[in-house]
């Protein structure tokens, strides 16, 4: 669940960030402390409503006394800590992490925030050479752990593979997957408690999967769509959006968003209804709402299909 720091805050801790002394509540992460000071740190796997897994390594900062860089999203501040967020060392690492991702993953539909960071760090996705051809469906998923197709190195290996379309609610385009673990967390103890998906395989062939890669209808998935809501790179996308993008009718500039309360039960989840040309094209939930924190159930998320009829 979300950080329950609010309960445990007793004291304030003094740290130095980029040469300026700041105080923040005990238990805060370096990231929270920086953001409260208006210091921008790029993040990818981190999300306020999920337990930090600190796997993307985009948010790295220098902490005096530490041999390596430190993930700001998960490291808690300590009294007297000296943090540097803007050195060349930090920038180089962030740029490289983004380039490693962009060279192996399709990052063409990402949040504005992430797109901004990619621009800021001047990400060159071809830095490691031309990208290798996509794998066939299921190829990456069935590789024996600790083995991989040997190449001659002339092409940069990618995670590209065909889109998985196996239900009417949402599609899984793992060519866009940066393996941030957010969907797995949202499907698991952080929200949904369904555990329909998990990490499978290992190393560069690691991937998000159901058991034996079965289609979603044969899995435990209940189509709450919470994984879709947390996915930062549109690897998980509602079917309507996917279809509209395919026929090029998706146009965010023509969309309006209306806030409402979900009519289905008494919980009172806030909904954001996205409409384009008088048709509901997506339902999301505001992150800042304390009942839902971005999460919904299948009825709220997909019930609109009955309205659209």
């Amino acid at each position, binding site marked *: 669940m979300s950080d329950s720091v609010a309960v445990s805050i007793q004291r304030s801790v003094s740290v130095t960030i980029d040469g300026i002394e700041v105080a923040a509540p005990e238990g805060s992460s370096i990231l929270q402390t920086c953001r409260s000071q208006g210091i921008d740190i790029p993040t990818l796997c981190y999300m306020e409503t999920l337990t930090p897994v600190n796997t993307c390594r985009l948010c*790295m900062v220098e902490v005096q006394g530490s041999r390596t860089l430190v993930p700001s999203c998960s490291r808690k501040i300590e009294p007297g800590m000296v943090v540097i967020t803007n050195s060349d060392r930090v920038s180089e690492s962030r740029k*490289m992490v983004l380039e490693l991702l962009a060279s192996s993953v399709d990052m063409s539909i990402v949040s504005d925030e992430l797109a901004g960071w990619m621009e800021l760090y001047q990400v060159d996705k071809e830095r490691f050479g031309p990208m290798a051809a996509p794998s066939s469906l299921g190829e990456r998923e069935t590789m024996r752990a600790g083995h991989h197709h040997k190449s001659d190195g002339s092409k940069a*290996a990618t995670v590209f593979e065909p889109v998985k379309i196996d239900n009417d609610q949402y599609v899984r385009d793992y060519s866009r997957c940066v393996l941030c673990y957010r969907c797995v967390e949202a499907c698991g*103890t952080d929200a949904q408690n369904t*555990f329909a998906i998990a990490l499978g395989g*290992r190393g*560069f062939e690691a991937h998000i999967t159901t058991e034996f890669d079965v289609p979603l209808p044969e899995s435990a998935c209940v189509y709450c769509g919470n994984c879709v809501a947390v996915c930062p790179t549109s690897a998980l996308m509602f079917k309507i959006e996917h279809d509209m993008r395919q026929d090029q009718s998706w146009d965010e500039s023509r969309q309006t968003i209306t806030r409402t309360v979900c009519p289905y039960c008494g919980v009172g989840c806030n909904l954001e209804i996205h409409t384009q040309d008088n048709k509901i094209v997506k339902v999301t939930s505001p992150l800042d709402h304390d009942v839902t924190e971005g999460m919904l159930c299948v009825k709220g998320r997909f019930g609109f299909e009955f309205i659209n009829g």
Partner: protein
Amino acid sequence: MDLRTSGKPASPEEIEAVESVISILERPTGTETDGKGSLDGRGIPFDNKGGHRDLLLPALHAIQERIGWISHGALDYLSLQLGVAPAETYGVASFYSMFSLEETPKTVIHVCDDIACRAAENGEPAAAMSGRWGAEGDGSGEVMWVRSPCLGRCEDGSAALVQRAGMPHRRILVAPLAADALAVELEKPVHDWANTESFRVPQRESDPSSLRLLKRVGVADPTSVDSYRSHGGYRALRRALEIGPDNVIREIKDSKLMGRGGAAFPTAIKWESVARNTARPHYFVCNADESEPGTFKDRVIMEQDPFAIVEGLTIAGYATGCEKGYIYVRGEYPLAEERLDHAIHEARSKGLLGNRIFDRDFDFDIELRRGAGAYIAGEETALFNSIEGKRAEPRNKPPFPAQAGLFQKPTGVNNVETLINVLEILEIGGLAFSNIGTPDSTGTRLFCLSGSVSEPGLYEAPFGIRLGELLDMAGGVSSPKSLKTVLLGGAAGSFVGPDQLDIALSFEGVRTAGATLGSGVVMVFDQDADLDQAILRIAQFFREESCGQCVPCRVGTARQEELVLRLSNNTVIGSRSDEIALLGNLATVMRESSICGLGQTAANAIESAFKLGLVRG
């Protein structure tokens, strides 16, 4: 939440295999099958916490051994019985290279394709296999073979692990590997298939009195606790029980013992922080997952002196307030596992494990766990996850194991070699121990010599011995060609040149030379050696063994392999110096931003090879 499974049935054999591991558990009602193994878990309360999730890996082993692969039905059955989501069970099973998730021949041969064996076999240890058993991974016959990372038999120059499923099932480690001889072995009844047991400790003949850690190897019967005791065994534990836990830790502190698993951390500090932690219970884990390419020291100890490990772990448990210890042994080490298992049983039957050991107020027992083919599981926090039935993904530190380790409890963890040093310390006293070696690297060290030396094998020498002296102990370079380079510390270590033979092999000595002792690997290459091959293999190793959790290592190791390939094929993009610079940038991000030591060290050896001019820059 309800657990949902596919409804695919498990066969009676699969159920039997799972039950052989978990039959003692109480299970929620509703998890019984209809007799045909068909079930659908809908309606069974389920929280994915699975109070006995730690039995997941043992049960997966049981299915793999009995059937030869893990079917959907078997996986569902196991998931349901343990209350773990099938997707997660699948995630665990697909993490390890010894589990097969598609139907596979009953006999699978894992052929070492790592640095030492490649060098010995002129780059292609697998050629003879293809001739006899078809292409790698071809499962159409009775036998399938696949490549494997180092199997810890580097001193023999080639090796294979054979996994045979069914009733009976068997795992054997053979070295040196000859396809013809192996084919003959595989014709025999399965229960007769034998490990090729060998240990090469040349000092045994030349200078036995120089051996402290290896003094019982080849002398005491590794299957007899009486033999162990008649060669000094259990004197250290007796002494420990006499002086009490605090004084044991004081002796360790006086000895200045540093961990031998690679990170060289002071053992006493670790023990002290576990002992002082007020949370209960405490656990102690012996890390016997030895998989660093070029390393075979722990295997020799496990196979030839297993009681020493049992005794060392018992002392560690005593000093740190544990009632339970674990030994996590590498899955590719069947004989080591057999000997340890036997030793634990013998010790238990003689009252040396269990309640009131030596009639004192001290209860301690040991559980043996087996890895399943993953180098990364040797990283201590990944190892905890593996025991807990999870993917062996390292955890971010802090918290450190002494705060929140196995099952989130205070945990001590030491390498096999570290633990047997404890016996020596208690026998001769911490201060006397600290006089061996150098002031900052005390005691003796085990060195794994392989490659182009006249007498490859396991050597023991006080810290501070010069690299050249050590090579002389092993008879010097074996071929008429002179020395080209030595790989120190394994794949995570670095190459040093023939002009560096006066490096003192101590923690501080190698650090000054920009190298590391790592797990004691000393792999020797003569002028004929193909270093392009060696560094390509190292690059492949890290790519294949990365857990895949963090970006710098998951993608970085793949890019590193591609770069090494381009440089060695001379198909560079831009200029060679551009590519070398890119390799350097990659090394930096892996070193600075990876979660664990695997990614942090994945570029070391390769960088050093370029720096020394061993491969064309």
